[in-house]
């Protein structure tokens, strides 16, 4: 029962979030700020993880395709597919759920328990719209950029390690990367990313927004935000894969 009442509360919250901003100029300013705090501040961790994961993926492919029957360039091809279809959009989004989700929930939760949200409401501002919409907009815009960067860096990581350890030649790896390329795969990755970006920011914003009590409750809200966004990412990953790849 609690699940349904919370879902209802979440939908009501979204309705408050998705109203037309009173002052568009301010919305724009806020969104730009959020692009910086959600996107640019995550660039470093996204890059590091992507390079290493690309490297590991390549090594594992090489070990598993250790038969003369399968051509070496398959390593590049298989690495590319894992990275584009699953690793970059899903795993990086899960990491962002941890980093960005906890940040949003604790920021909004703190504003709630220190009555900053009440203060805003009294000043004639719709706090859900003013605080959350720029975050959703920023993430939906910048996360696909992060994912593209992640894909590129992961493939580079694979190339560096693959060639440095002589598991695969540069020519084979690059040939693999270019084989059977379908732009639909990238489209699928970006659709997933956009949905995940929405889930992370709206769910975390929601848990922050409904926080009651004090500092301890802000901590709890932040944990809940990360857990719930992650669960919903996994769930929607399955749904979207079923919808988009199952033809």
């Amino acid at each position, binding site marked *: 029962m609690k699940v349904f009442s919370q879902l209802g509360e979440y939908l009501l919250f979204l309705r408050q979030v998705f109203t037309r901003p009173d002052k568009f100029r301010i919305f724009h300013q806020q969104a730009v700020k959020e692009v910086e705090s959600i996107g640019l501040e995550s660039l470093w961790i996204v890059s590091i993880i992507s390079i290493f994961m690309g490297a590991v993926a390549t090594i594992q492919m090489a070990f598993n395709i250790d038969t003369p029957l399968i051509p070496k360039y398959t390593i590049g091809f298989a690495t590319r597919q894992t990275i584009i279809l699953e690793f970059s959009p899903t795993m990086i989004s899960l990491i962002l759920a941890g980093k960005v989700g906890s940040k949003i929930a604790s920021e909004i939760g703190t504003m709630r328990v220190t009555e900053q949200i009440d*203060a805003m409401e*009294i000043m*004639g501002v719709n706090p859900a719209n003013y605080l959350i919409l720029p975050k959703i907009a920023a993430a939906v815009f910048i996360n696909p950029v992060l994912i593209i960067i992640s894909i590129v860096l992961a493939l580079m990581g694979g190339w560096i390690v693959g060639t440095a350890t002589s598991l695969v030649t540069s020519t084979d790896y690059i040939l693999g990367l270019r084989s059977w390329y379908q732009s639909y795969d990238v489209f699928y990755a970006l659709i997933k990313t956009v949905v995940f970006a929405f889930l992370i920011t709206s769910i975390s914003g929601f848990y922050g927004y409904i926080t009651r009590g004090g500092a301890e409750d802000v901590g709890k809200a932040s944990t809940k935000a990360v857990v719930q966004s992650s669960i919903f990412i996994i769930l929607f990953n399955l749904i979207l894969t079923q919808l988009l790849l199952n033809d």
Partner: protein
Amino acid sequence: MIEVNHISKQFDGKQVLQDITTRFIRGKNNLIIGQSGSGKTVLLKCIIGLYIIDEGDILFEGKSLMEMDPASRKNLRKEFGTLFQGGALFSSLTVEENVMFPLTMNTAMDREEKLERVNFCLKRVRLENANKLYPSQLSGGMTKRVAIARAISLNPKYLFCDEPNSGLDPSTANVIDKLINEITEEYQITTIVNTHDMNSVMEIGDQVAFIYQGQLWWEGSRNDILQSSNKELNDFVFATELTKKLKHKSA
């Protein structure tokens, strides 16, 4: 004037306010006193419309809050200045931006006009040269002053203060009380102050409403308090040795 008529409020089946009727007078400091947890904050938030009351009505200059359409409610809110318990300054904005926020969201003033108004308000609370500081860099007393400056920036008709001197040392608390008092008289505002601080009551309590377990238990002026024979009020007021001595002297 604000009139509260038979209002009740409950949370998850727990009755927090019960059939409260009282009124708050223009140009006066109307105090709501009571123990921690007695329902002062909830009452204040019902009056400003942050909580929706279960029963009763609230009238602002005779106009019913319950019967107002959303647009009139929004306009009414522009006449509110609110000082929340911890100050509730926006932590990501500077002092100047905090005081400017209500102006930006509610008026068509250009930047210069806004800045002029901000500086006027900050000067009014005797806080100059703090424009560029962030809330985390302010002392408790400064935080309250900025919050007052922000509350008066739109020239409110009503001022609501939730425990304005909680967490302050007695002399700073006194300064804040006096400031609220001055502003109330100067601009003839209807001011409501929640407090559990007897010093404030004696200092600025033009009209005092005592809330006990969610009910209006006693009403009167600060002078009546010392003479009252209401047991719960006496227990609340004369809780400390110091105030007990005061009672002996006045008797």
